[in-house]
């Protein structure tokens, strides 16, 4: 984990190095006074050798000093804390929706394998899988918010209930693109579990079908599903960047895109870093949950 952390700081550090031309000039614009460019270069430590710059950067990151936003003139850390809250809530919401949609669909398609229902669901999921998220978001916005007036058009709202209402369509948009993989994986592992000896044993013992499905089949089939969900978190985060911009949510993804427009590179850099660190943390958590669910796996 430590080498990966070092690696991601290296990549994020390199990001600013590959800005074409002089970073300070790019950030401040060609019409900036030479003195202010020089001052910014000094402030960013860009007048020092590269390895010193990197050490300096890692030192700052380690003490949670992510620099200052060029656009908002506040510390990036405080900016991100506020925006991350929205994104994390959105990610959690989407995860709940993914589970709520894919669990029943996965079980139903597996139990009714090759039936018209199974084939219809899978054909439908093939379609939702290739739909671009922002397009789905835009269409839902037209239909549910503008035409039908069921949901707010933009923003985040005040208070928990309002948040859940405002974030419903965005979370659903993200969920739709990830549900197909979940359903497919769940369906596959349920079918596999149904063939296994322990399920045959359970049936032979004369257990009720319900007990066999819930207690034996599902319990084992859920393990890979949990892993896949944990590993999908990076994809989920990509989804939030898109939908936050479609639905004008004040999250980190919208901040990222705004900062790109404003050439606010410290913010771009730190947002990327934070998202990567989150992915690593979630992967770690997934490993822990996995070892909890599957007693055969012990973390060494």
């Amino acid at each position, binding site marked *: 984990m430590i080498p990966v952390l070092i690696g991601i700081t290296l990549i994020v550090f390199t990001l600013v190095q*590959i800005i074409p031309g002089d970073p300070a000039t790019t950030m401040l614009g060609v019409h900036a006074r030479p003195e202010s460019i020089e001052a910014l270069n000094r402030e960013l430590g860009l007048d020092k050798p590269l390895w010193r710059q990197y050490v300096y950067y890692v030192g700052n990151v380690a003490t949670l000093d992510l620099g200052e936003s060029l656009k908002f003139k506040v510390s990036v850390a405080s900016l991100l804390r506020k925006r991350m809250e929205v994104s994390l809530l959105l990610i959690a919401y989407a995860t709940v929706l993914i589970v709520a949609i894919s669990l029943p669909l996965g079980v139903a398609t597996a139990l009714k394998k090759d039936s018209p229902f199974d084939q219809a669901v899978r054909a439908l999921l093939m379609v939702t899988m290739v739909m671009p*998220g922002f397009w789905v978001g835009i269409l839902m916005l037209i239909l549910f918010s503008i035409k039908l007036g069921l949901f707010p058009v933009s923003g985040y709202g005040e208070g928990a209930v309002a948040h859940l209402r405002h974030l419903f369509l965005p979370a659903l948009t993200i969920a739709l693109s990830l549900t*197909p993989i979940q359903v497919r994986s769940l369906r*596959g592992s349920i079918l596999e579990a149904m063939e296994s000896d322990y399920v045959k044993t359970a049936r032979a013992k004369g257990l009720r079908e319900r007990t066999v499905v819930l207690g034996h089949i599902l319990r084992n089939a859920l393990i890979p599903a949990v892993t896949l969900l944990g590993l999908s978190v990076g994809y989920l985060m*990509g989804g939030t960047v*898109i939908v936050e911009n479609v639905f004008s949510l004040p999250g980190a993804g919208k901040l990222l895109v705004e900062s790109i427009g404003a050439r606010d590179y410290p913010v771009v850099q730190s*947002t990327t870093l934070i998202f990567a660190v989150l*992915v690593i943390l979630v992967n770690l958590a997934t490993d822990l949950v996995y070892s909890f669910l599957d007693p055969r796996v012990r973390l060494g």
Partner: protein
Amino acid sequence: MSRVASVAGEPDRAAGSTGVATAAAPGLREVARRPGLIRWRERNLMIGGVLILAIVLVAVFAPAIAPRGAQETDYTARLESPNRDHPLGTDNLGRDILSRILHGTRIDLRVGAISVILPFLIGTLLGSLAGYYGGWIDTAIMRLVDVVQAFPFLILIIAIVAVLGPGLSNMYIAVALVAWVTYARLLRGEILVAKHREYVEAARAMGARDARVIGRHILPNVISSALVFAMADVILYIVLAASLSYLGLGARPPEPEWGAMITEGRTFLATAWWISAFPGLAIVLTGIAFSIFGDGLADALRPNRR
């Protein structure tokens, strides 16, 4: 999409691509019981292939079959809903949506194809080196893979395009820098297994150089899963390019790139839904074609299919 499947672990990669028929690989017994099944799988490959061929033909002959030019404006026919003259309606400049979508096929297919080639080549090369030689080469390459994979795919692409500057060519660079890792992982895994096979030992015993052993003997035997993956990735990159256009980082209007078209229609959402809706549909149709084809390919290449 494959980005997600990719991290889920190599073995179910090729099987877990995108479509209907793959989801559960029927066991041998089942295939024997239902003789029609094998033909059905090949039908998948054929349907997908025909669809892709049709899309490619549209791209090639777009100027001939499109009723109007991609940028041809008609101020007497602005924001018209779908009608006989304009089957998919017109936009705010009176441009024919159908014609723009047909022309856009050229851009989006090219984007999908170009995007997939570089990561495929880089990933194949580095994955082969890592798998074949092992040792520090393997460690170094796989560490890099781990680091790149720690980033959310889309966010790292966005960040790289952000510093390089918006545009499709910078997107190709970003994709090449990020997406090779899936292919490298895949190839490394395959080669780790294959390099101990007898045919490899035989080739080595006959004095073949490493490059020849890898290129002529191992790769042709293990490349198929990566190809299936590449097929599924084409649509991933078309969607990616569209998304970047939406965020203002990809193709710029008035280019009839599908994502840019969807974005342009955003302003007229409440009154003229067709401007955004139909280009998205074009992406979905293309995606379905590649998904079906990818599934058919995965089935056809699966070695134990008989």
